[in-house]
């Protein structure tokens, strides 16, 4: 059992939790992920690591409620437990293995979309700790949905914010802001790291390819075990099939087949919708899920 030491709602449908998991905290690096399972009946849910404290033995996770399982997770409070919490899984970000002196010669641009700010944060923080200032773009629908703004301000060289409705910072998509920085302001970037919804990563990659900026993306496909066993997370990168859990989760964004990856995310949408309906309606559930017989 893994105790929750802090539980906080960051924005609508977005939650942060600090969880006691000493083995994971001792071993993890930026870019890696964990799998959590709320109780006996729960799903295994992969989540990127947002922060860690090796001394205290804690891991910070941030998640958005998308289905029945994350909805259930959002009701957990400080003092509650996850039944299971395993990691770190996947590979650390590439720069973790590079010489900080070489890294200092490179200019990094991080692009975070929505809850993608969570996995971006430990990377930017790691670079800061190694004396490298990276530029960061955080995009969100609206001002109220912005997360980790203060933390990111401390860790980033320059923080830029884009909101779809213009309620804060640049009005428009992150791609518009990238163009603004590179084409209008003449900024030069050697590497772009984009993490967010699949559709955002796809369009960032289309743009950075045009701009000639090598781009790394972090994928979060459907997974079960997260250790290479099931192959649910397979993704086409270039002409090779890779498992996001053991070969990734970070890949060369210019080689990822995003259309296939987005298609594969739909596999359980119907079942997820049904499960959500059952959870929402509880004892009053009376049909519509296609399974309970209530429609007949």
């Amino acid at each position, binding site marked *: 059992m893994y105790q929750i030491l802090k539980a906080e709602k960051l924005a609508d449908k977005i939650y942060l939790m600090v969880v006691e998991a000493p*083995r*994971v905290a*001792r*071993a993890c690096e930026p870019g890696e992920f964990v799998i959590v*399972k709320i109780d006996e*009946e*729960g*799903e*295994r849910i992969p989540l990127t690591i947002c922060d860690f404290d090796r001394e205290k033995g804690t891991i910070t996770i941030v998640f958005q409620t998308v289905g*029945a*399982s994350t909805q*259930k997770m959002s009701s957990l409070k400080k003092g509650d437990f996850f*039944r*299971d*919490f*395993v*990691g*770190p*899984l996947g590979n650390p970000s590439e720069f973790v293995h590079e010489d900080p002196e070489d890294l200092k010669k490179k200019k990094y641009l991080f692009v975070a979309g929505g809850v993608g700010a969570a996995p971006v944060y430990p990377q930017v923080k790691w670079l800061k700790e190694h004396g490298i200032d990276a530029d960061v773009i955080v995009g969100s629908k609206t001002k109220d949905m912005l997360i980790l703004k203060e933390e990111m301000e401390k860790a980033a060289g320059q923080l830029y914010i884009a909101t779809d409705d213009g309620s804060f910072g640049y009005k428009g998509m992150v791609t518009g802001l990238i163009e603004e920085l590179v084409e209008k302001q003449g900024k030069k970037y050697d590497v772009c790291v984009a993490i967010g919804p699949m559709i955002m990563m796809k369009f960032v990659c289309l743009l950075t390819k045009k701009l000639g900026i090598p781009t790394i993306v972090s994928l979060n496909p459907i997974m*079960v*075990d997260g*250790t*290479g*066993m*099931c*192959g*649910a997370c*397979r993704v*086409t990168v270039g002409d090779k*099939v890779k498992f996001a859990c*053991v070969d990734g989760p970070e890949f060369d964004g210019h080689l990822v087949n995003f259309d*296939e990856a987005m*298609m*594969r995310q*739909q*596999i*359980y949408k*119907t*079942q*997820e919708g049904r*499960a959500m309906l059952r959870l929402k309606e509880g004892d009053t559930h009376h049909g519509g899920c296609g*399974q309970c017989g209530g429609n007949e």
Partner: protein
Amino acid sequence: MEANRDMMKKIPVREQDPKVRATNFKEVCLGYNMEEAVAEAERCLNCKNAKCVAGCPVSIDIPAFIREVKEGNIEEAARVIARSSALPAVCGRVCPQETQCEGQCIRGIKGEPVSIGKLERFVADWSREHGFVPDAPEKTNGKKVAVIGSGPAGLTCAGDLAKMGYEVTIFEALHEAGGVLTYGIPEFRLPKSGVVQPEIDNVKKLGVKIETNVVIGKSVTIDELMEQEGFQAVFIGSGAGLPKFMGIPGENANGVFSANEYLTRSNLMKAFRDDYDTPIMDAKKVVVVGGGNVAMDAARTALRLGADVHIVYRRSEKELPARVEEVHHAKEEGIVFNLLTNPAEILTDDKGWVRGIICRRMELGEPDESGRRRPVEVPGSEFEIEADTVIMALGTSPNPLISNTTKGLEINRWKCIIADESNGKTTKEGVYAGGDAVTGAATVILAMEAGRAGARGIDEFLSQR
């Protein structure tokens, strides 16, 4: 039992009716009762030079335990088995007895061999129901051994070492112990709470600790276990977890799964039950590619979840690697076998979902390196099978996580850990290995044999220190 019974034939074992069991996940085989077990035990000739023992990878003293069953001393029979096997209820169910103990039985020359597997199962089930627990060691020798993986190899190795007095901790990557017994083999063949969990509990009762949710190579490395956590030896029984795919067009379509994924969702995550959250494909027409036990398990799971199921296998029935009993059960339940058939392409609809599979007919040519006749495609023989789901059961290979993160641990070109078969010794001092991690995908009992050999090897190593 009637006096005029035919001693050449096995006492038949009761099974759920195929039509009924095709709609539930309860165990197919119901096993012997006391009367049937005693009657079957009477068929044993109690050979002096018992060939069955030689046929058993863990050398259970088969005539001795059957003798006890004949006398009705089931607890004593359980003690005889426990000397050689930590998982009798599992082995009685999933061992390929026809090629091992029963394949050697003298009774089998003129008639049917003694039903050793069903007798072993009876003894194990009886012991569990009557609360018989193996004797725990009186005190430990204070030496710590880490076992990686809680499947058949790991559990056997841990159980043996605990009996010798070692302090054993098993590290398991998943959230439940049991390895393939838990995530791979379905409930209807190997009940989880009824059979697997009690066997794991018995290993724990010997003093073995099990730490779940630890991925060796990620959460902690073998070197760290030995240098920082005080483990003096390590046994790697991490299995062969990585699924293989064919590399044919359409394989990443929605509705194509590895058998590992499909079975893990159903067995480990219990997706077949409404009260569990993990989803599983709501399949109507399923094609399972492969002819091994895993293919049979996936096919029979899909059938129980309401699908029409075809098995596609490129060789003929004779070469099916699955146990005869599993093939027989699958056919009884209504699974269609497309033999001498090889998939060429998976067809998809405009939204990326599977709609069918194109196959080619095969014929058998000259024997290949495995000794089996090589299947050759018949030109122009393409045909289509309609399907919304394709499950690939083509075998698995070892996970490189451990070998990649352990200094001095060598692997062969199939990524299997190099280890001495007789004692599990690897190329790294103090590190032993066995089971599928060494051999590639094989059987539960062979993994147990390797676990046992590893325990002996570790004991020899640590006794000298």
